[in-house]
């Protein structure tokens, strides 16, 4: 099982996204806010004449708000359920190969992390938390409702 993983940093923590789900990594410059939307929806942006719904991963994990003071954020573009999303992360590191299948985490994680976790995978750089893209997009509000 040699799944490729995209290693990103969210809220200071290195985690892995399934690379197959990620279309590209972009730097967002414009961000049009969506008034009244759930807090983790940071806004809309455009990529090659497509509308991206921008998700602030920090907020989705209830870890606070991503710092957007410098105006440019790195984001991973994913397609989910026919819509394109840009997931704002602190940093995009690299693509690595998974050395194991995802193992359930037995230690207790923070609330937000618990919700998005698909388990732990071993990589060359040590174990990483594998994050569920769909759960990131759904955000906190939905999880509470469920």
């Amino acid at each position: 099982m040699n799944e490729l993983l995209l290693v990103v940093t969210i809220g200071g923590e290195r985690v892995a996204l399934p690379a197959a789900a990620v279309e590209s990594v972009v730097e967002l410059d414009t961000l049009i806010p969506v008034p009244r939307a759930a807090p983790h929806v940071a806004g809309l942006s455009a990529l090659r004449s497509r509308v991206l719904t921008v998700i602030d991963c920090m907020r989705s994990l209830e870890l606070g708000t991503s710092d957007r003071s410098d105006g440019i954020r790195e984001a991973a573009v994913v397609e989910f359920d026919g819509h394109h999303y840009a997931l704002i992360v602190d940093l995009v590191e690299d693509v690595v190969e998974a050395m194991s299948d995802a193992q359930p985490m037995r230690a207790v994680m923070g609330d937000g992390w618990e919700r998005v976790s698909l388990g732990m995978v071993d990589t060359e750089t040590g174990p990483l938390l594998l994050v569920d893209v769909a759960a990131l997009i759904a955000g906190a509000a939905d999880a509470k409702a469920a």
Partner: protein
Amino acid sequence: MDDLIADFVAECREMLEALGGEIVAWEAEPDDRARLDSIFRFVHTVKGNCGFFEFPRLEALSHAAEDALADVRAGRRHPDGHLVSAVLAIIDRIGEMIAAIDAGEEMPAGDDSSLIQALAPGAEGIAAPATATVVEGQPRAASAPRTIRLSVELLDRVMSTVSDMVLARNELARRLRESPTEVAVDGAFERLSAIIADMRDAITRTRMQRIENLFVGLPRMVRDLSAELSKQVLVDIEGGDVELDREMIEMIRDPLTHIIRNAVDHGIETPADRLKAGKREIGILAVSARQSGNQILIDIHDDGRGIDGKKLVAKALDVGLLERDEAAKLNPREQLALVFEAGLSTAKEVTSISGRGVGMDVVRSNVERIGGIVEVDSKLGEGTRMTLRVPLTLTIIPALTVSIAGQHFAIPRSAIEEIVRANGESVTLEHLGGAGMATIRGRRVPEVSLSEILGLTSEVDENDRRLIVLRPAGGDLYALSVDRIHDHEELVVKPAAPAVMATGLYAGTTLADDGSPILLFDPAGLAQVGGVKLETQERSARIAEGKAAPVSKSTAVLLFRALDGSRRALRLAVVDRIEEVPATAIKKAAGQLRVQLGDAILPLAGASDAEFGDGKVRLFRLNDGAHEIGYAFAEVIDFATVDNDIIHAESPGEVSGVSLINGEPAEIVDGHWLFANYVGAVAQAADQLVCRLPSDDPWMQNMLRPIVEAAGYRVVGDEHEGDADLVIAPQGREISGDASKTIWLRPDPDASGKKDESIYRYDRAGLLMALKTAGAGRGK
């Protein structure tokens, strides 16, 4: 019917082609179950369709083959060589017949009984197996239209790619505007744009489906329903070839079904009742579709008992939908429109067919959700007509862009009733217990502030905002205050992500010309979130009524303040719309002021040089049917009617006279003079005489009439009896009466020949001369 046959033929051909290989394989291996199944499916399909189309020979053949093959499938019979040959011979014959049907020929003469007998167990084979493969290579009739079947997903993908292409083009256009480019590049881009526009049109058409697809199930449905209700109903369907967006067809399927169920259940009476009422036993349900502009009209008309408006009102009073004094004011159409209110049904008994009064309100809100309208008209005892009006397509929406706190949004134009300035003359804005209430020309509508709904802080003072009066689907009027209004645009709208839709405020997203995303509002959602109670107080406003023809004396005018501060009026019919442009869009070019509006450059009246400064200029867009000019002004005062006499000016000019409007004098702007002077190519220019002008010609009425009146004539219309001293008619029109007293007007500056005695319609001098001559002629 012909189309259905063509479909049938196409389907059979397709199956025959696919079968070509199977047949040969089956021949070699009669025990192959998969091959057997596909051949069985083919004869089964043919049999099913034949019954529908009345092709008895085809039916007999396919039926026989189906029976034999069914035995084989059930294991009652072993497929021996004879059987295979016989089946193949039948398939061959079917192929020949289909070819004949396709070519529109008579069925080839012949007897199929020998073929059918050959199927019987133990019969001698009569057809040579080798002929089986002939089907494969059969030449197509040259005249048949070539069609292929495509999956809907593929079409949707192409459509969405084309939409993306349009957006990409818009972005490219923006970049081109920003950077200096060569003319050659611009030219190439223009060409690309045109091609993309063509392509979008074409691909939009591929998504079109005949509405027949929707109608084809109706006869069956009506038959079942009427059988259940012991009624007799004849369905008459027309206009099945009208084309509609595939998605739209799906959206109107339910409302249409519901209306038809209602018509059969509540509308059409039982045969006994019909006879008593002096009608034929069989009720007629006519369903027709036609295209009108970019709308599709679907009429559902039954000749049943009709809807009793008074009963509806009584019911509405019962359930508390209406107040008694309100009810008394309703006109018959408004009474009928009650049928769309929730919780009303005049049916005495609840039936399983159309339920209990839930329904028509749902029908209306479903139709309005897709930007359509449903109307009802009914005569008690004679029948009911329901009309659905729906737009052709869903994906490209005309919208208005507005901004609040610097952010742009779009509002679908179909929901917009009107736009007013919050501080306009006829608008007052009040706050009652924190709730906004706008009074627009005497009509009270709830007002909500977009900035409050969105939780944004607006920097524009409340009184400087614009109010957009919206009528959401299934709801009532409310006014939305926004900071600024920008532009009308045709937007390619895409659904937004679920997290965005969850707000209930938005209908989708789109990209603006500058490439930034714009959210499209859902007007009903805005009202809901904004806390507007969507009640039914504005019932009468919902009905689109033809206004009574204006009385000849009181002409509707637009009262405004000109740039020089004078109070002026323009005939309303001449004003197309109001535009706001930056002062930089106005340039002096080719000897006169011109204004750029989008792609058009119009002559600009109402202003002299350099009055504009840097700000925005508001202007009327005037239209005489062929040309447009702009007319700059400072502010609109009001709509008014000219009830008093007009005192005509001494000499022709921009102002043709003055009249008292709303108690103060106002100058009446002379539309004819404006067009004559601003739309180039002008051939530089008693007692009550009667002049007849065609009353159905708006140009004559709005442009020419003031001049003729100024020349001392009393203007009458076509319906005027008695002699006219002068008749003015457009060139080529038949008129009765003495041609010598007729002035013909032609639309082109150049005469078409020597004998052409008509006058160019902006040749003011010529016109005045002709008017004078005609007057003098009578004086003799």
